[in-house]
């Protein structure tokens, strides 16, 4: 037995490159899977933490529509439910020194009545108990209880006085203040929806509480004034005791709520918010699945080569008396050890790579959804286990098949290379049938399932496997064909190609691996490009107005992002503006989950920009009467069709809206509604954006300065300042984003590209994985062939000729891989575009193919092939001929 293990260890040590490649393959595969998990898990966790940091020990919360809740409801409930702890919160997004932060307006007095008992695990509870301990150490002359548990930032009456009375007073974490460069008591400017406000930092928290890094705390009065939410609350936090008494309180509380106001469990909100990012995370998830696919293949090829290479050793061992089981066990243990080591390496590398991805992910989240600062990298044990398990399992399966094969032939047969090749040939033929079967199965799966994303991925997997299965036969056939043709012209070339065909057990798998990688790359890049093109066309169509005006700030649908009504009326009456669209973004609740709502008043020419994919007749009359249009992704997710109704929670309670049509939308998965209907239903008069159409002959360049002037003078006259000059400098004037159509499109495309930077990174990661796979398999083959080369060289082949021969072989294989990969890649792209995308995101995209993508694929195949040949070529050119021949 010990001989067996010794043989195994020695083999691996004698082939460090092989060992390294197997490990690298395993590690890269696992790393790819892990990195995506890390990026998504960390940003979700950061968001959950910031929600927890804001919610504290609340068990429930009361929420309203886009306009929040009337603050008088809070006063009424506080008087009526003395047993229930209630705390009002007003929140919104602000920008400080170009960093997006969450402004949370609280009433410390109300918060003080919350007890931490009900949520001992909450952050604030932890902070309190941590603070309680040192509080006893005060001087003996004062009641030591004076430093109460949880003394935080406002630690004297004087500071509470500042908090309540000083204009602009805020508190933030010391780390945040340091990052922003704000000293204690420092004054700074805080921007909300294009308006600047003066703030002063009256308190800094020295503890680094998770989730608190993006928060700016202010008194509720201050937050209301800054956010333009005077009279409104974003939500009311509720704490009830656990058990029957609490349930009774909640039931009574619910009865007191006016229509449109809801009471829900505290965790609900973070879930709901995360739900909004669904499209984004699905996207990442899809990438992670692709990474998994490529990763698995890489692991498989790395491991199976490691075993195949030792057929001879195993045969010798068996001839020496080792049983099949011994060998099998040996291989499996080895695979487990290698697999485990590779997976762990991959896990570590994946966490590292994930860190890089996090920056990209959180930037996208900030732009589109909510403010989040990912401070800690987290990976759930579940997904770590998943990635390691996938690596380990694949390694075992990859090792098991060839090992089983190696141990089930008679030992003396296995010693003969020809037996292996004969077998490979038979296998290649069988694989052609398997390939056809897989392709049929892929088709059947797509046809037989309608919504399952998993089924779509299985079909994709089958399709790619089908290509891989076809490749060896293709390689052999084309190599033989070409070899016959070449034999007269270049005997050496004929030999080289004949070699490729004859060593199918090696070359076949290598080329299959490369074909698979190239096909996957073509599939993904064509999908991304198709998406990009579709988005581009869609933007061109949707963005029909000439000029767009909005208030700057994070988050698309934040209520505080609104244009001053005076500015709106000034802008639309500027000479040269012929007509305009008015838009208001909001998030409203529905029984199915939160819905992003775009309330619009459209100019007639904007109707054409709404690309209806499903509708009955002319939708616009119905739209004006209150029917809604649903974006494709949402319609897909909730199976909505024209003629259905969608219930939304309006200010007067639940109301059903007729669905007049489904429209194409890659921006948000929301609902389009007439703004008059929206105002009536939610009482929100705000305007988030304007789309201006210019009169014929007027250009954007001419009119933009006029628009700025109009906006400025509107604000000036409202302030009523004495001189225009000083007024222009006065704070409180709203900064606007005024952009031309082309500008907005460019911005949108850059947001898209930013989002898909992740995709590209993963794309290249997968390509890298494939290249390494090819290198590893070709290397094994070329190393085996050193003897043949030695013979050729002894017959007069120059070192340079030998190198060229090897490179020619690898390039040929690269080209064969490409030939197999191109149709397969296009099929995969079609599957990704029409099936996977539809099922994952609900939207339809048009197939777009550019020559550049195929050239990319060609480049990948050739570069990988050339690289794979470099080392063997270099080696065989340098090795003494005698040594090469003797080695065998």
């Amino acid at each position: 037995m010990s001989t067996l293990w010794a043989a195994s260890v020695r083999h691996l040590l004698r082939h460090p490159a092989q060992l390294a490649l197997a490990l690298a393959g395993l590690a890269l595969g696992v790393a790819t899977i892990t990195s995506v998990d890390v990026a998504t898990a960390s940003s979700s966790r950061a968001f959950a933490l910031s929600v927890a940091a804001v919610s504290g020990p609340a068990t429930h919360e009361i929420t309203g529509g886009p306009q929040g809740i009337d603050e008088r409801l809070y006063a009424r409930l506080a008087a009526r439910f003395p047993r229930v702890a209630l705390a009002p919160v007003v929140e919104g997004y602000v920008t400080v020194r170009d960093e997006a932060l969450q402004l949370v307006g609280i009433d410390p007095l109300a918060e003080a009545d919350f007890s931490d008992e009900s949520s001992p695990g909450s952050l604030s509870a932890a902070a309190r108990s941590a603070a309680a301990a040192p509080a006893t150490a005060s001087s003996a002359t004062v009641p030591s209880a004076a430093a109460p548990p949880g003394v935080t930032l406002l630690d004297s009456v004087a500071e509470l006085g500042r908090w309540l009375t000083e204009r602009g007073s805020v508190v933030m974490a010391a780390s945040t203040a340091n990052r922003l460069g704000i000293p204690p008591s420092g004054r700074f400017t805080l921007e909300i929806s294009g308006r600047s406000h003066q703030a002063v930092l009256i308190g800094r928290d020295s503890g680094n509480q998770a989730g608190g890094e993006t928060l700016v705390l202010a008194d509720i009065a201050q937050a209301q004034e800054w956010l333009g939410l005077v009279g409104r609350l974003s939500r009311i936090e509720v704490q009830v005791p656990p058990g029957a008494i609490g349930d009774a309180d909640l039931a009574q509380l619910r009865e007191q709520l006016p229509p449109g106001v809801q009471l829900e469990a505290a965790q609900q909100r973070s879930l709901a918010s995360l739900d909004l990012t669904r499209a984004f995370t699905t996207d990442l998830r899809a990438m992670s699945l692709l990474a998994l696919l490529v990763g698995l293949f890489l692991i498989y090829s790395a491991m199976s080569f490691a075993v195949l290479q030792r057929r001879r050793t195993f045969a010798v061992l068996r001839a020496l008396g080792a049983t099949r089981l011994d060998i099998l066990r040996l291989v499996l243990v080895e695979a487990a050890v290698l697999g485990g080591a590779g997976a762990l390496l991959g896990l570590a590398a994946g966490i590292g790579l994930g860190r890089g991805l996090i920056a990209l992910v959180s930037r996208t989240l900030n732009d589109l959804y909510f403010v989040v600062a990912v401070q800690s990298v987290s990976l759930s044990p579940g997904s770590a286990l998943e990635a390691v398990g996938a690596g380990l399992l694949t390694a075992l399966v990859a090792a098991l098949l060839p090992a089983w094969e190696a141990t089930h032939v008679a030992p003396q047969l296995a010693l003969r290379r020809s037996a292996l090749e004969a077998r490979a040939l038979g296998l290649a033929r069988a694989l052609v049938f398997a390939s056809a079967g897989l392709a049929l199965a892929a088709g059947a799966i797509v046809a037989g399932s309608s919504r399952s994303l998993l089924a779509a991925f299985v079909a994709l997997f089958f399709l790619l496997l089908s290509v891989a299965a076809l490749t060896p036969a293709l390689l052999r056939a084309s190599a033989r064909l070409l070899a016959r043709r070449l034999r007269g012209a270049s005997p050496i070339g004929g030999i080289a190609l004949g070699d490729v065909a004859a060593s199918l057990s090696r070359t076949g798998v290598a080329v299959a691996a490369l074909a698979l990688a190239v096909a996957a790359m073509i599939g993904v890049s064509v999908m991304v490009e198709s998406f990009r093109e579709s988005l581009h066309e869609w933007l061109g169509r949707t963005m029909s107005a000439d000029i767009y005006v909005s208030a700057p700030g994070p988050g698309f649908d934040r209520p505080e992002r609104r244009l001053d009504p005076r500015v709106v009326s000034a802008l639309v009456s500027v000479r040269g503006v012929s007509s305009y669209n008015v838009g208001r973004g909001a998030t409203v609740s529905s029984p199915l989950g939160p819905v992003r709502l775009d309330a619009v008043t459209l100019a007639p020419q904007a109707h054409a920009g709404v690309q209806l994919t499903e509708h009955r007749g002319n939708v616009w009359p119905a739209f004006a009467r209150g029917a809604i249009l649903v974006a494709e992704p949402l319609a897909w997710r909730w199976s909505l069709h024209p003629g259905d109704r969608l219930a939304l929670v309006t200010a007067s309670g639940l109301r059903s809206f007729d669905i007049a049509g489904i429209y194409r939308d890659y921006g948000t998965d929301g609902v389009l509604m007439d703004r008059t209907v929206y105002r009536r239903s939610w009482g929100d008069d705000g305007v988030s954006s304007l789309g201006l159409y210019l009169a014929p002959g007027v250009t954007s360049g001419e009119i933009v300065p006029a628009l700025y002037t109009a906006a400025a003078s509107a604000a000036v006259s409202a302030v009523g300042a004495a001189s225009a000059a000083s007024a222009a400098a006065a704070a409180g004037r709203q900064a606007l984003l005024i952009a031309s159509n082309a500008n907005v499109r460019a911005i949108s495309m850059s947001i898209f590209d930013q989002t898909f930077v992740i995709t590209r990174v993963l794309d290249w990661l997968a390509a890298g994985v494939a290249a390494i796979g090819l290198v590893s398999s070709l290397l094994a083959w070329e190393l085996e062939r050193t003897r043949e080369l030695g013979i050729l060289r002894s017959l007069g082949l120059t070192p340079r000729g030998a190198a060229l021969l090897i490179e020619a072989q690898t390039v040929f294989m690269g080209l064969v891989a490409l030939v197999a990969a191109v149709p397969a890649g296009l099929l995969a792209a079609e599957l990704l575009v029409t099936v996977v995308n539809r099922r994952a995101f609900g939207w339809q995209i048009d197939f777009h193919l550019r020559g550049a993508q195929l050239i990319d694929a060609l480049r990948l195949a050739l570069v990988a092939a050339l690289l794979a040949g470099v080392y063997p070529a270099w080696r065989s050119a340098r090795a003494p001929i005698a040594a090469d021949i003797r080695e065998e």
Partner: protein
Amino acid sequence: MARSCLLACALLLAACSGGVGPASVGNPSTAPGTASPLDMLRAGSSDSGFARVLTVRPFEFPQDHGPHPSYRLEWWYFTGHLRSTRGERLGFELTFFRVAVAPQAVPQDGADATAPASSWRTRQIYVAHFAVTDIERKTFHWTERHARDALGLAGAQAAPFRVWLDGWSVAQEGTAGVWTLRAADRAYGLTLEMRPLSPPVLNGDRGLSVKSDVPGSASYYYSIPRLDARGQLFRGARATDVSGTAWLDREWSSGALAPNEQGWDWFALQLDDGSALMFYALRDIDGARDSHSAGTWIAADGRARALSSDDVRIDVLSHWHSPDGILYPSRWRIRVSSLGLDVEATPVLADQELQTSPRYWEGDVDISGERNGQTAAGQGYVELVGYPRR
């Protein structure tokens, strides 16, 4: 009474500390001790901008039942003794503190003149304590609440009289001269109709109660030593009819204790013969009684007589260790020789400590002893503030 200042400020601290807590980035940012409310009081953290208590002023009712927002601190302090129809005895405390965190606003310089102002803007906040001593069940239960004087969340008014915080209130809801008390938390609820049995009694010099030699270290202080109280006590959802006698203490001020004063012991005794005694003993840092300690004797016929520190002798008969290591006196012999009074005050329950910040002991006591050779009995409330942790 100085206790208003001290307590209110301390409570305020508790308020704000808890305050940023839940929502917070929270952690202690300063060393313990530097934030002591007592230190703050000693520093006299500027009563500038507030009205100061320097001279005797005329009291007018009902106006003076209402708030005096130009002073920094004020409180409405109800304590009482109840008996249920089944004979169970109970003590209760419901206190409202008003604290001005800053002097009334001067008109702003117009920075945000065009922006509408939030209704939450205020400089007045309220803190309330509700405590029940359930003697039969040997439990003491308390709850603390905070709210700002905004949106009607908390406040006070003279006519019709009302002081409230969230759902807790004492208010004239119908008939003049009848105040309805309402308070409830997760364990207890109390609804009482209270009728003052005497006009307000002015303590100190015609209501001017001087706490030290520092100018402004004084308060305006009156009491209603007896209110008839009847109504219902709720234990969870179960109601019990109760009746008894309550005491109201009212005080407002802007000043602080003198630097050498550490705390006080306050006694409010209601004797069965209809007379009543209020006395506060100010303690200096060295443990000795401060000479500014004082009290009021109210005879059964309602006539009041001021008592000086020398008039009243108090001996501590035993002590109680709180779970947190504070040593409180726990039984007293109180003698006023000029009145022929010699009684013992014994807590009905040793633990009647409110674990607010700072902690203080405010409890129901039984009175027994003699007056002028006759047996004397009664009930009372005692408040112990400023005892250090050991």
